[in-house]
Each structure stands twice: as C-alpha cells, then as structure tokens.
C-alpha cells in the first residue's frame, strides 16, 4: 500500500472506504466517514483499515487480533455482509460492489453498539452460560488425568466441524430471528449446544435440551439459512439446529413443546394432504385456549377481509397425492434408518 499517485499502475486501485462512525461520548447518532486510499491487489479489508487508522485517522475504532482468520475478533459488515475483515480481499468485495469503488464498513448487527465498528459481545457470552455451552464430564474431577475416554473417529467427526466455530458472531449478526427478538438463543449458541449434546463424554445433554426447547430456544428458528450462508468457517449450522430438534422429539420425547407440536402438525398435514391445513395449525401447535386468546382478533379481521384459509374438510389433497405419499414414506423410513446408524 503506497500513497495514491499513479492510478494506472497495474494491480492498484483507488478505493473509498465508507466507515460507520459512532462515539457514544459525543455523537447523538451514527454517521459515515469516507476515506479514499490506493489499494494493491491481495490486500484485505483489515489491512486497509489498519492503513487508514495509522495514516489518516487514528480515532477509527475496531477490533483485530490474530489477523489470520482464527481468533474471530474482526467480525464486521462489509458491503452489508457480516464477515471477518482479515480474510476478506478488497478486490473480491469490489467485484461484487453495487457502487463502483466503494466499500461500506459497518459494525455487526444484533449486538449492542459500543463505538464505531465495535459491538458488545457480552450478550453472546451470557447465552453460552445460560445454555451450558460446556462439557459437564461424566468423569468426576478427582479422577481426571488418569485415563482417556475411548472415542471413535466416527463420534469425533460428529462434532469436528462444529468445533471450527471461532465465535466471530457473523451468524449472530445475520440472524433474522435475533433482529426481532434479542432474547433468541442465537445460531452460534445452538451450534455449540449441539456440539456438546452429541459428545458422549457429556453428562447433561438432557438438561441442556430441556432449556433449548423453552421460549426463545431452538424452535424459534425459521430456517432462513442466513447463519449458515454467512459462516466464515463454512459450518453447516442448520444441520446442528435440525439435529437438536430431532433429538428433542425422537430421543427425549419432548413432544409437548409448541415447537415440536408445530413440526408434528406440519408432518401430519404433508403426509395426509400433501399441503398444510392452515386454519387449524395454531390450535394444534399451541392449543385451543392460546389460539382463542391470541389469534381471535386477527381471525376476525381476516374473516372481515375474506382472507380466511378454508376449513379442514374443504382442504383438498394435492394433485398426485398417492405417488407423493409413497415418496414420503420412503423418505421418512430412510431418515429413520439414517438416525439409527448415526446413534450407534
């Protein structure tokens, strides 16, 4: 990185970094500052920020530590997408940038803002504590250090990928549920919970699971997959979320939560009709009392606007339902078999 001189030299471009600024001591609301520097091919967003901080404006505040993609400190939004500044190439971002030559840098979402690009990580740590994101070993502390647990490569592979998580909070920032409900468990915490649950050394997966199926827990996820798409370590986070749900229904018999009932109702509708019977879905999920208390006003409004779904007897089965049922049975059997071998 050199001073901006010859624009036409190969492998160099003038780039404007539009940086989110907010200092709680003086600013009533956030604003953006533009910094234009010449960037060489191969330079990351973090190196550009470091350059700006060292040469133009030392007051820009952001976290950075290992600068090698393993510590997770420099999570931020670059052109709208949460990622690590240290592993993001400026030229890659420019190639996809809507405004040519401009890179917008903002703090992560869904965590309290402290200053500029720095957000408070404490809420995430508190959730890790709340959902016991640790192994509570079946071995008493006094016996530790004497012999190893024998663990198969197969078991190791079950949580290997999940242990790649560096808690950068990109998934937290992208999560659509957290935008509406800050108390929601968070994708990263679900991932860690899953990693603990499938570890045979852990003694408290029952208790952890019981906590996970409560309000703001695993059933609140709406499968938008944004966590998984944004994961800087390409961890299949949704597999973990599905894994916890399956575990809750199949193994722990936690069929009495609204989330599990919702899932069961979906399954049964799809099996019988090939589509949803929406009119009774809230009753089957949350019960008649809850539905009357919470949804009656909305139902009345919907009736007034003639937007009510048809009552159950009038819901016709989808076209080709016979072939579909056959496929459905085959699929569920396949999943069941898969589970058996998985749990062995």
């Amino acid at each position, binding site marked *: 990185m050199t001073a901006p001189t010859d624009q036409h030299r190969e492998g160099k471009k003038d780039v404007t970094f539009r940086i989110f600024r907010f200092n709680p001591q003086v600013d009533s609301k956030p604003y953006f500052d533009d910094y234009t520097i010449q960037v060489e091919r191969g330079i990351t967003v973090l190196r550009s920020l470091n350059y700006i*901080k060292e040469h133009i404006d*030392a007051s820009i505040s952001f976290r950075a530590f290992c600068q090698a993609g393993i*510590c997770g*400190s420099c999570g931020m939004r670059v052109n709208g997408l949460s990622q690590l500044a240290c592993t993001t190439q400026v030229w890659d971002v420019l190639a996809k940038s809507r405004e040519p030559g401009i890179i917008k840098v903002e703090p992560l979402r869904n965590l309290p803002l402290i200053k500029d690009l720095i957000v408070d990580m404490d809420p995430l740590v508190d959730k890790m504590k709340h959902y016991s994101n*640790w192994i509570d070993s079946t*071995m008493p502390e006094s016996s530790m250090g004497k*012999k190893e647990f024998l*663990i198969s490569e197969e078991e190791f592979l079950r949580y*290997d990928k999940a242990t790649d998580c560096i808690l950068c909070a990109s998934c937290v920032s992208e999560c659509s549920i957290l935008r509406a409900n800050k108390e929601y468990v968070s994708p990263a915490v679900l991932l860690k919970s899953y990693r603990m649950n499938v570890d045979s050394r852990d003694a408290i997966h029952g208790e952890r699971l019981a906590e996970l199926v409560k309000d703001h827990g695993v059933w609140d996820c709406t499968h938008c997959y944004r966590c998984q798409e944004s994961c800087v370590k390409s961890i299949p986070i949704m597999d973990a979320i599905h894994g916890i749900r399956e575990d809750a229904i199949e193994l722990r018999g936690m069929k009495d939560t609204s989330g599990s009932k919702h899932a069961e109702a979906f399954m049964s509708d799809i099996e019988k009709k090939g589509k949803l019977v929406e009119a009774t879905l809230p009753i089957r999920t949350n019960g008649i009392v809850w539905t009357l208390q919470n949804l009656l006003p909305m139902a009345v409004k919907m009736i007034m606007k003639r937007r009510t779904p048809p009552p159950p007897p009038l819901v016709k089965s989808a076209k080709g339902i016979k072939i579909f049922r056959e496929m459905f049975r085959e699929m569920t059997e396949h999943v069941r078999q898969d589970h058996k071998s998985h749990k062995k």
Partner: protein
Amino acid sequence: MKPFDIVIVGGGGAGLYAAMEAMKTNPSLNIAVLSKVYPNRSHTSAAQGGANAALGNKAKDDTVEMHIFDTIKGSDYLADQDAVDVLCSEAPKIIRELENMGTPWSRMEDNTIAQRPFGGAGRPRCCYCSDKTGHTILQTLYEQCLKKGVIFFNEYFALNLSVKGSRSRGLIAMNMKTGNVEAFPARTVILATGGYAKMYWNRSSNAAGNTGDGQAIAYRAGIPMKDMEFVQFHPTGLRKSGLLVTEGARGEGGYLINRNGERFMARYAKEKMELGPRDLVSRSLETEILEGRGFDSPAGKYLHLDLTHLGADLIKSRLPQIREMCMQFEGVDPIDEPIPVRPTAHYSMGGIDTDNFTRTIMEGVYAAGECACVSVHGANRLGGNSLLDILVFGRIAGHTAAEEAGKFEPGNISEAELKEHVEEMRGGMHASGHHERYGELREELGQTLALNVGIFREASLLKRGIQDIAELKERFKKVRVTDTSDVFNTNLMQVLELKNMLDLAETVAAGASAREESRGSHTRIDFPVRDDAKWHKHTLATRVKGNVVLGEKPVTMGRYELQERTY
C-alpha cells in the same frame, strides 16, 4: 474494589488453566482473570500443530525419558533439566485431563488420542485435533472456566504492577470500554500474557497483541527477564502479513526458488534440500535475500515457495488450508502461482525469569507460558512443546498461587498511587507538541530488529540495532495519540503496546549483543560456534534506573551431559 486473592493477567491457555487449577485447589479464593481481548480470542488459538506427550498411543515404545532428551537436545542444552523433567512428566496427565474435560482430539484407529511426528522428536508424540489444536484447547478451557464461574474482566489492558518494597500489592489496568484506570488490589498476581515476537512487527507471524505486555510490566517492576535474545524464526512466512505457511507445504514437495530460478537449498542442504531443520532453512532464505537473489516488492524482499508443479488435485486435497490462506491474505492461488515468502519471527523463548513453581523474584508475582522463561525451551523450542508449556506451567502457577496466597497480605492501592499511574500513562500524549506517529515508530522498530537483531547477528549490526532502538525510544517521548475519547481508545492502547515493545526490544538487543556465540536460534556471524566454556548460561536482563543491566544464571544440568547438536 474488594481485594482479590489471585489476579491472573491473560486469558490464553496458561491464564485459563491457572484460573481453573486455582479454583480447584481452593474454591474459597477470590480469583479474577483480566484479558485485553475476550479470552477465546487469545493467541493460543493460532497454534495448529499440537501438544507433545509421551502417551505411547502411536509409538508404543515412546517414553517420558525420550521426550525429556529430545527437548534438552532441541534447546541446544540451554534448558534447565529439572524444569524439562516437570514439563515432560506432567505431559501425559495434562493431555488426558483436557481430554476428560471435553477437548475434541483427533483419534487413532483404537479410539485413543491421535499422535503424529514432529520436528526434533524421536517418536510420533504430538497430540492433535486436525490443524486447529490450539483453538480447540482454548475453547475447552474457556468453556470450563465459564462452567466454574471464573470472574472475567474482559478487554482490560494491564498497565503496571503496584509495587511496595520487595512485593506486589496488585495490578493497575485500564478498562477499554470506559477508559477508566482501575486498581486490582491482590495478594498474588499471575502474569500469563504470551510472547513478545510481535516486536518484529511485519516480520512476525504473531497476533497484533503479542506485544509482551506481561514481560514489560514485570521488567518495569524490577523483575529480571531471562534469555531474551532467543527468538525463533520460521522459514516461510507470507510476504505481506508474516503469517505462516506450515512446513507441510514443503513436506508435500514444494520448492524454494530465488529470482534466478534456482532451487537454492542445494547450496545449504544438498540432501535434505527444502526439508532441512527450521533454523537452517531460515538462515538459507535470509542469505539469499541478503546476497541479492530475492524478489523485490514494496512490501520488502522475498523468495518463492513454488507448489505449482504439485498439481491442482494434490494442493486441493492435502493443502486446502494453505491454499485458502494464500488466496485470502496474499491474493495468490498456489495452483497457478508461486507463494511469496520470507522468514518470520514467531516465538519468544525468553521471558520473565521464574523457578519451576512459576515464582518470580518478587513475592506474590508468578509468571507462566510464553510470557515466562522457566526455562524449558532453552535456545530453541521444539514444535509441539509450546502448547504443552502453557498447559503444564499454567496449571502449576494456579496451584502455587492458590497455596501461597494466604502468606501475603491483601493488597491495597491508594487513590494517590492510581492517579500517578494515570498520569504516567497519558503523559502528554494528546499534547500538540507531540507529533511522532506511532505507526511509523512501530514499523521502524520491526525493520531494525529484523535487519540487525534478526536471523543473522553480528557485532556492528547489533550496535546499529541498539542505537536505533534508543532513538526510537527517544522519539516515543513525543508520540501523539490523536484519539482523545475514553471509550475503546485503541489508538492509546496501541501506543502503550508500542511502549512495552520498545522496553523489551532493548533487552533482546542487549542480550544478543553480549552473547558472543551461536546457539539454537541465536546465530552470530562473528562467533559461529557454540561456546560452552563461556556461554553455557542464561542471560538475565534487569532494569536499573531505566537502563538494561545484564547478569547471568547457571543452567541446571541433570542426567544429560553437553553434546554437539546434530540431526
């Protein structure tokens, strides 16, 4: 603030193990861990390879005794043999303990912890979890500390020990979130802040924060530093960032090439070529650059690590991480182009002088991990022994401090003293008369160290290095902090880190200049051989009236006599 029994500075492997062990030793103690980052961000996470322990899972005939010998030989006989005994004897127990707590180790076919061969080890005894061993160990320790309810003060930057007479009364630290300078009165303090190799700045593989804060704090308090001149260089760091391209790339058949297109290792290690020992390969790259056979770039001179002949399939299947790293950090795909590399500083063997129980000469102050020098690594550390060091001695520090805390009075730090520390810290840094740019000073420090106190050292170079550091220290007195805010003033923190690096750089250069021999990582062109008669001893560096005063300490010998180190 209520006085603590133990204040631990640093939340990496050593600090977290110390916290856990101290709580186990005496659950009634009031313990706090301070860290300038969230503990799970600590540099322990960057250790990929693994931790050595003679479990005998892979090689049934491996023994603790063999591990001891390999470590002593690797240290070029500068390690203290009783300390190495502790390190290696405790190793199997501590690896199993971590396993029992939930660390996800890779597994052997018989379901035991997997082990692999590592440089300088006679048997495959390096326990690992893929290429993320340090990361998974750090996660496990952090999780266990959360489980135990350890009290964390995250994003607190440690400034100074509060010293009265021969003992410490606690710690002074800045809360980054508020900018407030706070007192942590404590019976005991454990320093576990990691290494100082980042002083080589762009010529270092270390995290930005490995600035030797703990060592500098101890040094300013009058505690001696030991063997500071021993800094390990890794042969293949990426040109721009200094990040490591692991030995695996050469193991798979990568070539090192100079600007004339030569595989230059033929000149230095005809048989082993690119797979010679780490210090030899580092010296070879440096020689090529010094003799003008390197490539030029604005980011400095470099050489090529060429993998293109290995083919896309092999690179994608065996070196996927390296490929990803090269693309992310250098913008180079090793399938199509050679990787620009040069040697990079990556580990500090030296540190705070401690005994085998992690005690320093100051009552109530302990040190562990890369921050300390027991010494188990001597003049050269073996791969797989650094994670082990932080675990074993982190635990010992926690245990010792917990046992001894009762001996010391509860610390107390007066408001007046606190004010002095604040004034010392801010010392005119915002004033308009202050004009020096910290970024420039930091980069110049890295440059002079790499050039004059780097892989090859020589009397006139070292003299130059010492002068440069002195000038930089002088210029630092006029350093300017432009950010005047209290909340998360990273500008101020980086300036204070620079101050720590400058203080320590002086001890590294002084030690290197005094030691007129070549041993382990310390290579003197003017004194090319090991000189046991004169130099088989530790260097001590103590601060007296602001200056480095060198002393010495004998090496503790044991079952192994001095031998020539050949591989």
